[in-house]
């Protein structure tokens, strides 16, 4: 890439301070989605693995940030070929402070940090499917490998100006394919390899803390405005449409899910409200720059009902998608991506028109290509990576450790100390000075 030339060109965009400020704030908003996701998932697991669930998201903030700096940004967004970016930005060394993202009024660093937050949350999304049963070291290695082999290239396919899906005209405004289908398909690939939790379909595994789930959902909803509106990379009317569509679709999806489960199962549940909201956020992610506000209602309702129906599939087909990453993110991402082919007005951010706006079937066909290629690639790669990890170091904890609970076994902590009874203070048991030390020495995490 030769960005210096672009900044010198006479008609090139100048630094736009409004957009720069908005995208920096959006980056911070997207960052808070990862802790939000941690709480959303953390409240849904049983009490004995709550901390592990939080950590599976938080570790992504650590690992992926470093990988992004070293090579992720370069492989994803430097100009290369249709499938992978180049190497000019390895280590983020040769980026000028004044250098602008080609075609936009924001510095490259602003784009880099905004996209970093996407790279962080995407692997974290997968964690919900693996609840209660995987080694922390295996998970950490998995997200590093998956980000390298899958996320960085796929982000290039979808968003880089020379990415093959981008050049074809596949629309993904903020990550319906690159983030949600990508993560959902990876989750499916991994759980098909590592298998079910002990007691799946037999033991009750109800959420241990629904208020935490609601808190996480609220943080996700809040952060998602940065995720979607920020993806326009400017602060103007299109960003505003993406913003308002995000709110509308999410509201519609929450109502859709709630009505579905009231009719089907008899109650309006808290978990249903949170799940419906997230399903709507997922579905409007690719489409928020293509549809009208009324179209956003349709996208939301369809996603809410489709995802509410899809989460039951794991019982029918017997795969343990513990917290419904496939049912919500993969299905929601597919719904949102394909509905662009029907509801794109051509008058918002993108010019492509869907079936209902006289555009014919062309865009829908393109969306199918986007959905199918990302889904297939991610699922296959994730399954292979999971298998490699499983046969070398082992992906899962032992059955004993799983029953005891991964919080204690992997992290040597307990989420809640309700009574303050039963644990001696550390001072009374100096590590290594008693026979306890050998017994408490933890097995390989």
């Amino acid at each position, binding site marked *: 890439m030769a960005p210096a030339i672009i900044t010198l060109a006479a008609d090139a965009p100048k630094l736009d301070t409004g957009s720069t400020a908005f995208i920096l704030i959006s980056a911070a908003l997207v960052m808070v989605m990862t802790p939000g996701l941690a709480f959303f998932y953390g409240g849904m697991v049983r009490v004995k693995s709550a901390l592990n669930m939080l950590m599976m998201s938080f570790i992504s903030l650590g690992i992926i940030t470093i990988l992004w700096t070293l090579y992720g940004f370069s492989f994803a967004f430097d100009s290369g070929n249709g499938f992978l970016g180049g190497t000019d930005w390895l280590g983020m060394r040769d980026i000028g402070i004044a250098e602008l993202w080609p075609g936009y009024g924001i510095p490259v660093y602003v784009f880099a940090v905004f996209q970093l937050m996407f790279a962080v949350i995407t692997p974290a999304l997968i964690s919900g499917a693996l609840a209660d049963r995987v080694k922390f070291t295996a998970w950490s290695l998995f997200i590093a490998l998956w980000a390298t082999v899958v996320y960085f290239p796929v982000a290039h396919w979808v968003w880089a100006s020379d990415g093959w899906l981008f050049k074809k005209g596949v629309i993904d405004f903020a990550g319906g394919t690159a983030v949600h289908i990508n993560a959902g398909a990876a989750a499916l690939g991994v759980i098909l390899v590592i298998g079910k939790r002990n007691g799946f379909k037999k033991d*009750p595994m109800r959420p241990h803390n629904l208020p935490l789930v609601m808190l996480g959902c609220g943080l996700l909803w809040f952060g998602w405005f940065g995720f979607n509106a920020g993806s326009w990379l400017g602060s103007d009317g299109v960003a505003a449409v993406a913003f308002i569509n995000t709110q509308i679709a999410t509201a519609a999806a929450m109502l859709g899910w709630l009505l579905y*489960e009231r009719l089907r*199962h*008899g109650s309006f549940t808290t*978990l249903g409200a949170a799940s419906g909201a997230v399903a709507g956020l997922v579905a409007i992610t690719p489409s928020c720059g293509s549809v009208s506000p009324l179209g956003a209602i349709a996208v939301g309702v369809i996603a809410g009902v489709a995802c509410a129906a899809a*989460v*039951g599939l794991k019982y029918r087909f017997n795969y343990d998608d513990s917290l419904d990453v496939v049912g919500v993110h993969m299905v929601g991402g597919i719904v949102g991506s394909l509905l662009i082919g029907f509801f794109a007005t051509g008058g918002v951010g993108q010019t492509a028109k869907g079936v209902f706006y006289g555009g014919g079937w062309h865009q829908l066909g393109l969306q199918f290509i986007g959905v199918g290629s990302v889904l297939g690639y991610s699922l296959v790669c994730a399954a292979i990576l999971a298998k490699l990890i499983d046969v070398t170091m082992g992906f899962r904890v032992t059955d004993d450790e799983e029953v005891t609970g991964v919080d204690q076994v992997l992290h040597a902590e307990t989420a809640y100390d309700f009574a303050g009874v039963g644990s001696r203070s550390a001072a009374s048991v100096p590590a290594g000075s008693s026979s306890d030390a050998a017994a408490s020495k933890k097995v390989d995490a």
Partner: protein
Amino acid sequence: MKLITAVVKPHRLDEIKEALQAFGVHGLTVTEASGYGRQRGHTEVYRGAEYTVDLVPKIRIEILVDDADADQLIEVVVKAARTGKIGDGKVWSLPVDTAVRVRTGERGPDAL
């Protein structure tokens, strides 16, 4: 001495405490408990998956009393705990050999 144990619905605790105070009981112990009797459990639904929850939250109240007061005290507890619906709980009493007030070392009824 007798130990009166009552396993009752959690939301009756305040009524029971007030009734016992009016009766002149100066101390009791309350623990959160779970269990079921004829009430059995209930069904919860999470994302369409139904869970049968067998054990229902209850509270267990324990009171040490003089033999003479035992029957009357049981009546007080039962009256305060009753809602008339299934799941109101049980109250029973057991004989107690001895009791010691830890601070002073007093024994028997003096320790109450």
